């Protein structure tokens, strides 16, 4: 094979595919739609936050009627002040006159039942719960225990458990403390999501492009100038680049939206890139995953007869790509499990699974090497078989080959 000629012709096909895809109205709309929806969501959230913060007064007065005569201290609870009333009528009057924001009645049998009555104005329309049970609980605990037990005991009654963990290895020695970087975990999870999105968009364009060329009968003209493998490589590169541009634009807009979100009262983890080795490994799986699933989509495009038919059966390819996301919880809790290892070694589920495990630092070099070797081998085999399907079925119009017929083609290569 003349590799210079192959790359040259594939490059020409790739440039055309990239140019025509970027020029498509549907591509531009789709590229713009996701950030616009994200922007609408962020703006909506910020507006909701602003409205909520406006609606919650910083300082609050809560009135109460104490029939037990036990709650006569600890009036100041942060920004909330508790104000006692001698009888319910005076307290209700204060509530109606807006002297107090809320009113509680502590009945005489409170110690036996724990019941506290909240008196509220009649509300019309949507009822928003503005009760302050946390503050009320602290007020009650403080009054019940003050003077009877120490400050620390009061604090432990308020918050009995602050759980800390210590991991030990097989010898019983503590494992080196290496806290999980939430931002890095989010990065790799995001990369996994991008793989799935890339497969659905770029590979979808491959399907669409091939079906269009079959339907408008230009395929035979193309195949008299380029080989099926050159055509396939060109399409993978060009449409892959278009898909990559799309997800990069989405990623940039995602970061911009996060920064916009951070401008509100939301605490976000510091945005930093992961260390170089995991980052490179993650990117390697990203590209290997695209190559594998893009080639599979190209094979689907070769054997299907219309865009409608191909989109109906494209789930065959999408299914294994997204399958690992169903096991996120067990993999996060036990990233060394047999399930995680098996999913890492199966080439079709490896890209997303490996990204999760790289993020958790739960994948060894041997397993990594084996997983990548299996993926490369599968990609090689898939490209080889797809070339055979391309050669035979790209010029077959209006009829989808049967399983046995395809089997013969794949075996014979003719």
């Amino acid at each position, binding site marked *: 094979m003349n590799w210079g*000629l*192959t790359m040259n*012709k594939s490059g*020409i096909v790739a440039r055309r595919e990239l140019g025509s895809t970027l020029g498509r109205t549907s591509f531009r709309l789709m590229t713009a739609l996701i950030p616009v929806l994200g922007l609408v969501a962020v703006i909506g959230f910020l507006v909701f936050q602003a409205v909520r913060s406006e609606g919650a007064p910083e300082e609050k007065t809560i009135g109460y009627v104490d029939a037990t005569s036990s709650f006569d201290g600890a009036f100041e609870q942060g920004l909330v002040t508790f104000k006692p009333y001698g009888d319910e009528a005076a307290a209700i009057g204060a509530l109606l006159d807006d002297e107090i924001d809320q009113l509680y009645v502590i009945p005489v049998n409170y110690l036996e039942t724990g019941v506290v009555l909240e008196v509220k104005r009649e509300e019309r329309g949507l009822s928003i719960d503005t009760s302050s049970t946390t503050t009320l609980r602290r007020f009650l605990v403080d009054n019940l225990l003050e003077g009877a037990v120490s400050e620390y005991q009061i604090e432990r009654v308020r918050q009995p458990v602050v759980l800390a963990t210590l991991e030990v290895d097989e010898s019983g020695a503590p494992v080196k403390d290496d806290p999980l970087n939430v931002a890095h975990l989010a990065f790799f999870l995001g990369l996994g999501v991008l793989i799935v999105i890339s497969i659905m968009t770029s590979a979808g364009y491959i399907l669409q492009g091939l079906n269009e060329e079959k339907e*408008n009968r230009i395929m*035979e*003209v193309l195949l008299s100038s380029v080989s099926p493998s050159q055509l396939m490589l060109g399409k993978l590169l060009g449409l892959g680049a278009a898909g990559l541009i799309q997800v990069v634009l989405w990623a940039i807009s995602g970061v911009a939206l996060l920064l916009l979100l951070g401008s509100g009262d939301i605490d976000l983890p510091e945005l930093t890139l992961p260390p170089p080795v995991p980052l490179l490994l993650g990117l390697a799986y990203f590209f290997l995953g695209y190559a594998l699933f893009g080639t599979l989509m190209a094979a689907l495009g070769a054997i299907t007869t219309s865009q409608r038919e191909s989109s109906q059966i494209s789930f065959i390819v999408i299914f294994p790509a997204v399958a690992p996301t169903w096991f996120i919880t067990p993999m996060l809790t036990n990233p060394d499990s047999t399930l995680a290892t098996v999913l890492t070694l199966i080439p079709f589920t490896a890209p997303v699974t490996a990204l999760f495990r790289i993020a958790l630092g739960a994948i060894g070099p041997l397993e990594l090497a084996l997983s990548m070797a299996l993926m490369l081998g599968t990609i090689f085999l898939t490209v080889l078989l797809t070339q055979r399907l391309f050669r035979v079925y790209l010029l077959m*119009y209006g009829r989808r080959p049967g399983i046995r*017929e395809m089997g*013969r083609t794949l075996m014979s290569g003719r």
Partner: protein
Amino acid sequence: MTVQSGSVFSSGTIAIEVQGLWKRFGDKDVVQDVSLSVERGQVVGFVGPNGAGKTTTIRMLLDILKPDRGSVHILGNQLSAESQDRIGYLPEERGLYRGQKVTDLLAYLGMLKGMTKEGASARANDLLERLGMGEHAGKKISEMSRGLGQLIQFAATIIHRPSIIVLDEPFSGLDPINVRLMKDVITELRQDGVALLFSTHQMEQVEELSDKVMMINRGRVVLDDRLADIKRRYRGDALKMVVDFMPEELDGTGDVHRDGDVYEVRMLPGATPEHVLRQLLDKGVAVERFEVATPRMEDIFLMLVGSGHELGADHE
């Protein structure tokens, strides 16, 4: 402007050399032991009934399909990606990217044949002018009529100045003016030494354009010769003549039919045209016209492949 062919691989006269080509689909041998050759500057008509194996043969000599057996040599070299660039191909099932501009599309297809972008664009504009379509250069394909689309496809076939051109039903869908235009261009290309192989069901086009005819039926070659030799070989036993009167007795002749001024006289086995003509002259008949009736290609086609085949579109 003339439509020139490009540089060639070797200086030999054979442009396409196919030997013993076989292709099987499933349990059916679609092409069986097909051999053919096309010389530079020669036009070969490639004919056969539907499903005879024409398109499959063409796809194999273009490297679109791989043969099970046999060899293809292009310009003296074994078929390769490089030699593919020396061939221009107009398939029967043809289409274009409807959303693309005419010159951009031609430039793209030229680049796929090894041209530079600038060279392909310039050549595209020249060709469009030559085909009388200069005003459409900047338009989108979707704005073109079917006939104009055909001409654009023909331009795409020759944009890279190929040494070999393969045309599958080149005149279908064209009006008489554009048929004449395309024939003129084909004649120019032949004069420039380009080898042309064209497949068609229109036998009158074969007779008009071909130097040589190759006919296949059920995947096998049933005829492969120069047009003149074929006509000579399949010359019938009929004589056509315009005479002032027809004698009642003519030795060596059988049925006589009259169609206007023309008599068609069937010769009996062993008789020769010279013997019949001599008798006419000896009997004092004034002979205005005397010819041996040559069969039309359509007659030969029907004779060789039977009359049960429809001369319609090919779907192999």
